């Protein structure tokens, strides 16, 4: 039951929000309360998984390979916890005011549906169900993105819609072919049955189909172009939600499918992932240097850092995968915070164009110091969480003697530093343009940023335990047998490799 709560709570909140009388203040409070309940449920789930190992919920009591199972191992539980944390931050940020038309068109329920879709994708143990959660999440994000109709937003929305639908079609194709080969859709059953029945030729084709489909969603080079073209247009809270969660679902699905279905570290597809990760780092962060809009800088940084989260999968060692998991956790927090900071710019100056910003340090020193933490955490300045995550990833890369990849990762970290320092210089230090409009910042717009920054600092302080959790999650992922045993029971594991 605990496993279903991260899905049921947002669903119940979304339905309640639709049924309630449409008073903005009431809606915001209910949405926030729902997010708090969801956070409580995911934290208790994480504690349970941490203490008792992989948890399985057979929905409708159907035995595992026939019905849909919800499965939560440490990796899923950690990511769902992040969803809860980000959900609280985003619903809290709506207290600062949402554009009234957007609110009337169902902003609050859509946020809940999006959170539900992401949690579902992280928890499902069935590959077709994963596709369905992807669609739930996508349709909510489509609507959130196009609720408003400025020209730039419409342009961004259909770029986003078109490419994501193409990715969905590819994913569905891969699922159809996989079912044709293996005759099952359950992850654990696939992991058990697939290696014997798979034909090598189709194996490669399937791996590439999955890589392309999830690569589009995750924003891997060369499939990331929809991301910087769309993430800078929606309002800051929506941008933060999409940036923090959606690409990570692609990364999650990639890690989950590949560790279970293609457990051959020497396979060509892992070389492809390694090369794509390295190229993604370079292209994303070089792209960030040329951008003049804060949110476009962030979008390119988001793309570049996806490379760090997939490199662990390519190397297939517990240390590297654990490093990547830690990186995913850190990056989800920090990139969401930074998109919320861009909302602060919008509130104060009505723009996120770095050329027109400036003087924020002089006018708001406390807020500037607050914003400095995620900026430099993303760049990987010690002792912040970005530094710890980067040490974990790059250390593991060095251990596997991929020196070129390590050099690329270090060089791109410098580029992140450069682009973040430029943001700091342009937005905060540079003298302001002539008499900028000064809006007062309410507590409601700063509070979510404080909440996320505290958690980033929490990762810094509790670096040891969080690192340990990531490593345990990685070990669990690489042991497909354990997963099969947990889902199918004892008899399944004996038949596995």
């Amino acid at each position: 039951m605990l496993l279903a709560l991260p899905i049921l709570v947002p669903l119940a909140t979304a339905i309640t929000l639709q049924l309630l009388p449409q008073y903005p203040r009431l809606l915001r409070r209910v949405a926030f309360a729902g997010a708090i309940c969801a956070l409580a449920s995911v934290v208790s789930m994480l504690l349970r998984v941490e203490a008792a190992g992989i948890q399985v919920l057979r929905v409708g009591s159907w035995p595992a390979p026939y019905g849909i199972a919800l499965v939560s191992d440490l990796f899923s539980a950690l990511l769902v916890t992040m969803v809860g944390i980000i959900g609280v931050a985003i619903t809290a940020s709506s207290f600062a005011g949402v554009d009234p038309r957007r609110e009337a068109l169902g902003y609050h329920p859509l946020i809940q549906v999006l959170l539900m879709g992401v949690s579902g994708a992280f928890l499902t143990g069935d590959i077709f169900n994963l596709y369905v959660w992807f669609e739930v999440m996508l349709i909510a994000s489509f609507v959130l993105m196009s609720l408003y109709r400025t020209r730039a937003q419409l342009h961004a929305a259909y770029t986003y819609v078109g490419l994501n639908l193409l990715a969905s079609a590819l994913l569905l194709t891969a699922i159809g072919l996989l079912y044709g080969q293996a005759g099952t859709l359950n992850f654990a059953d696939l992991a058990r049955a697939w290696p014997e029945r798979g034909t090598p030729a189709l194996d490669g084709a399937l791996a590439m189909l999955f890589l392309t489909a999830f690569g589009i969603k995750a924003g891997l080079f060369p499939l990331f172009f929809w991301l910087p073209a769309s993430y800078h247009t929606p309002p800051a809270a929506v941008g933060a939600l999409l940036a923090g969660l959606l690409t990570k679902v692609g990364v999650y699905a990639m890690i989950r499918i590949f560790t279970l279905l293609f457990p051959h570290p020497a396979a060509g597809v892992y070389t492809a992932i390694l090369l794509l990760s390295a190229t993604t780092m370079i292209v994303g962060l070089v792209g960030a240097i040329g951008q003049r809009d804060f949110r476009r800088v962030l979008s390119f940084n988001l793309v570049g850092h996806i490379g760090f989260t997939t490199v662990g999968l390519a190397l297939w060692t517990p240390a590297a995968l654990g490093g990547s998991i830690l990186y995913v956790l850190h990056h989800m927090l920090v990139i969401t915070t930074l998109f919320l900071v861009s909302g602060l710019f919008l509130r104060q100056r009505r723009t996120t164009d770095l050329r027109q910003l400036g003087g924020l340090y002089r006018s708001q020193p406390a807020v500037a110091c607050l914003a400095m933490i995620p900026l430099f955490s993303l760049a990987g300045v010690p002792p912040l969480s970005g530094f710890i995550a980067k040490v974990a990833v790059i250390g593991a890369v060095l251990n596997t003697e991929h020196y070129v990849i390590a050099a690329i990762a270090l060089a791109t970290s410098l580029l992140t530093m450069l682009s973040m320092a430029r943001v700091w210089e342009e937005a905060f230090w540079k003298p302001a343009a002539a008499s900028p409009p000064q809006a007062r910042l309410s507590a409601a717009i700063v509070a979510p940023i404080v909440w996320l920054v505290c958690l980033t600092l929490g990762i810094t302080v509790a670096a040891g335990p969080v690192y340990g959790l990531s490593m345990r999650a990685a070990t669990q992922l690489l042991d497909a047998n354990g997963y099969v045993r947990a889902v199918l029971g004892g008899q399944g594991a004996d038949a596995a490799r």
Partner: protein
Amino acid sequence: MELLLAVIAGVLYSTGIYLMLRRRLAQLIIGLGLLSNGTNILILSAAGVTRGKPPLITPITTRADQFADPVPQSLILTAIVIGFGVLAFALVLAHRVHRSTGSDDIDTIGPDRV
């Protein structure tokens, strides 16, 4: 039958992709529709086509060769429903783009041309 379905799926995929590469939004949407239908046919043919047998297990049909596999059919049903919803959304989006910009050519409605 499998060969025919495979060819149809291939044709739908290629026309779908071709239309998605065009510049007009209407063609993008028709391309998406063709692509999702191609996928549905692919699921059916990849899982194996059973001729003349219902996907139902009754007291008389209990052996595996007496009924068709119901899973691909339910997958396709789900995919059709999702595809329909998504396509409806895409049409509304295109209609909005057309109404606010008076064009459905991707090049003329880009954010850079005002």
